[in-house]
């Protein structure tokens, strides 16, 4: 390691969790319930795990109540498969859906305040895409804590981790994975508050770093969602999967991108273009404003592209209107106060008298680090990397395929968290000790950080970050085509060149936020390039990936995309099969799990 960049400390743990969000901490707690003597460290970029992004999720969690006489797990499996545009893995769907209710009860027993009905049982609400009888009437399947379900989950797993003495390492970054004899033995951390680098040696390492929304200009995602976990594995030559599958939520508030939930349209809110025309009638004559997320997002984008959007002069952003002026005082004040409140609080308008500016906003990554049904990270479709696991939004098992259903992400966090926790508890019984420091450790971290600190140049890293987000939004957003994506690749290369010349104001390591931002910028560039390369190669439209030049789903692409980063920075692609075991095993409902046409 170079002079400035030295590992100041080496610590040993049984398990290292990189990313203390809902998924990472559910995993930690499960390991401790099986093996209470396990020592675990959990790392987060924020000042407490409680502040992880899971805490912002609003709507709810899907889980079929066994007491429900109408709903059945197989209907939930069908909705997930159909919603994924036939590209989720059916073994994963089955594992998650079958364990949903048991895990809801676990959360309830450990403190989550699920909203109750008059009988004192869980209240339930319905969401788009949740049906009974394989596409029949709406299912009431989502359990929730008011409009803060994610906070309930985060608080529960955070507090259980605290109770069980997980060591939290806050405001820190995982910068590099460590390996010995073909297995992962821990990671290098940059602890920003102290300005030190720490080597954590562990028998098992879990990546649970969350999403990548900051790659785009407008997003519901938090500032820390810079795809760090993805960049981390790509730097090690390990693959990522389906990064081109990025979910846009149709109605983000202009300009902060905050989520304006479907519930507003559910209550009767209508989308209007600049001529105040209710345009959804043209695109989805039957379902209109309540059509699925990807369809509404594409319709809004089309209106904007064809000149029927409005441009906000303050923010220079095109948008359409969401009209909720006609909704009753009861809806504004009692039913959806938080969400209607967002408009007055964050953009200073009164939704009872003003039209609300909205546009598609990046919400979720369906892709991630490829794992099997136990959360073990794959080096290739048939080989795992021993000692390394991934879970949550940063992992791709794949439960969501190319389009995620509302309420299915939170479900994945804690059901897969349990599965991965159990798997690690088993692995720890036989896992070899990580041994001392490997001979060449922290070389990548050293090279990266020395480079950041030594660079001289006047370019501004926030300008580059904004330019990157602009490129991705314009050229690889809701709609994609070959020409624009080719331009995006060139533009990203140029931004990469510029980035190398960014000189930092201070060479101090202690809480140097600019240094953290600089590290994140590298990750954003890596992830952005991987998204574009995958999207360019996938010459079809599937779920959230919509190609203007290839508008149909194609059997030639009935597989997952694997992407590997090479030494020279180039991205090479591979494939992984989509598991269709529910279909292949035959039985009564096998027909519902074939290659269905996705029509609503």
């Amino acid at each position, binding site marked *: 390691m170079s002079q400035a960049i030295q590992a100041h400390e080496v610590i040993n743990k049984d398990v290292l969790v990189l990313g203390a969000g809902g998924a990472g901490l559910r995993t930690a707690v499960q390991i401790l319930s099986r093996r209470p003597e396990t020592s675990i460290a959990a790392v987060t970029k*924020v000042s407490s795990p409680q*502040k992880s992004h899971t805490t912002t999720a609003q709507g709810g969690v899907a889980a079929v109540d066994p007491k429900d006489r109408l709903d059945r797990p197989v209907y939930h499996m069908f909705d997930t498969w159909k919603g994924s545009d036939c590209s989720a893995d059916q073994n994963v769907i089955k594992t998650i859906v079958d364990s949903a209710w048991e895990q809801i009860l676990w959360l309830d027993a450990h403190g989550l305040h699920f909203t109750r009905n008059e009988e004192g049982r869980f209240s339930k609400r319905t969401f788009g895409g949740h049906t009974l009888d394989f596409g029949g009437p709406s299912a009431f399947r989502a359990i929730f804590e008011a409009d803060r379900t994610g906070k309930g989950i985060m608080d529960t797993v955070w507090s259980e981790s605290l109770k069980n003495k997980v060591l939290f390492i806050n405001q820190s970054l995982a910068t590099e994975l460590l390996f010995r004899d073909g297995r992962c033995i821990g990671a290098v951390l940059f602890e920003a508050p102290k300005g030190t680098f720490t080597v954590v040696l562990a028998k098992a390492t879990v990546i649970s770093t969350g999403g990548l929304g900051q790659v785009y200009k407008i997003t519901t995602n938090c500032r820390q969602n810079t795809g760090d976990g993805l960049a981390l594995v790509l730097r090690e030559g390990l693959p990522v999967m389906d990064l081109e599958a990025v979910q846009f939520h149709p109605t983000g508030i202009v300009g902060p991108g905050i989520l304006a939930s479907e519930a507003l349209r559910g209550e009767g809110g209508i989308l209007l273009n600049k001529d105040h025309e209710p345009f959804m009638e043209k695109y989805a004559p039957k379902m209109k404003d309540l059509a699925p997320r990807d369809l509404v997002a594409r319709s809004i984008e089309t209106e904007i592209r064809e000149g029927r959007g409005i441009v906000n002069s303050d923010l220079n952003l095109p948008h359409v209107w969401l009209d909720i002026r006609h909704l009753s005082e009861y809806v504004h004040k009692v039913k959806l106060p938080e969400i209607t409140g967002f408009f007055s609080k964050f953009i200073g308008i009164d939704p009872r008298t003003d039209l609300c500016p909205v546009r598609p906003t990046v919400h979720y990554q369906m892709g991630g680090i490829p794992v099997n049904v136990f959360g073990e990270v794959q080096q290739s479709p048939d080989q795992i990397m021993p000692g390394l696991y991934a879970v949550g939004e940063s992992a791709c098992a794949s439960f969501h395929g190319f389009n995620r259903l509302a309420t299915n992400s939170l479900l994945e966090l804690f059901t897969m968290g349990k599965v991965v926790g159990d798997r690690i508890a088993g692995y720890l019984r036989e896992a070899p000790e990580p041994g001392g420091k490997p001979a060449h450790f922290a070389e990548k971290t050293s090279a990266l950080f020395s480079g950041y600190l030594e660079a001289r140049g006047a370019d501004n890293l926030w300008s580059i970050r904004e330019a990157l987000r602009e490129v991705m939004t314009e050229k690889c957003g809701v709609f994609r085509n070959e020409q624009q994506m080719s331009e995006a690749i060139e533009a990203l290369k140029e931004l990469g060149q510029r980035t190398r010349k960014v000189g930092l104001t201070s060479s101090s390591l202690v809480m140097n936020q600019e240094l953290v931002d600089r590290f994140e910028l590298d990750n954003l560039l890596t992830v952005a390039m991987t998204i574009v390369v995958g999207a360019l190669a996938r010459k079809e439209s599937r779920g959230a990936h919509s190609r203007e030049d290839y508008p149909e789903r194609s059997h030639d692409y009935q597989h997952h995309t694997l992407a590997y980063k090479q030494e020279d920075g180039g991205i090479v692609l591979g494939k992984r099969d989509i598991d269709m075991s529910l279909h292949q095993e035959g039985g009564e409902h096998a027909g519902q799990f074939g290659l269905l046409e996705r029509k609503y």
Partner: protein
Amino acid sequence: MNTRQTLVLKIHRYSPENNQAWVQDYQLKVSGMLRFTDVLRKINQEQDPGLAWTSSCEHAQCGSCSAIVNGKPLLLCELLVKKAVERFKTTTFVLEPLTVAPVLRDLIVDLAQAYERVHQAKPFIIDPAGPPAEGDELRIQPQMMDHYVEATRCINCFCCAQACISRPGNFLGPNAMMANIVRMLDPKEQAKDERLDILSAGNGLARCHTARACSFVCPKEIDVAHFLALGKQGKMS
């Protein structure tokens, strides 16, 4: 709607390398529709990439961006320029870091240290009441939950602790006390005696002087003082 404003920001800065503190002025023209987090980002982009501040969700759900603006503790992500100008009747704003934990750099404080006080109040179920039967949820009447769920909306932004007239050295803080009290009200918690010990400890509720500053500043509009009053009156079951 174009609402541009010229602002002067006087930001309290601190550099740990040489232990220096100073106030730096920034002047910039911005849209009234920006939030203070956007304004700071603009400063990073256009004037000073080295100015350190922090945030996360930027929609008032995580409590990472608390700071003191013209003497008031608040969340920077919620403070719209237009509204700030109306509220404080000025276009000059003094930004200071919270004092509930040591400053690390500029506006960033070591919130993990402030969290230690919340941890002392045991923000978890110490002794859980099990579910009634296999596969069934614990029955809780919604009217019962109405007594305490409001307090579970707390995001630990520490604005209340900042405004509190008792200092952190003596008092665990309004948010920490509330985390204890809410679990005394929660039927899932059985360890009520241990909770009472936390409440009556030397750094517990006796340090609350009922000034109600906590309720006044809470960005989640939680009536923190109401919950602390329940604790004082012993009305917890």
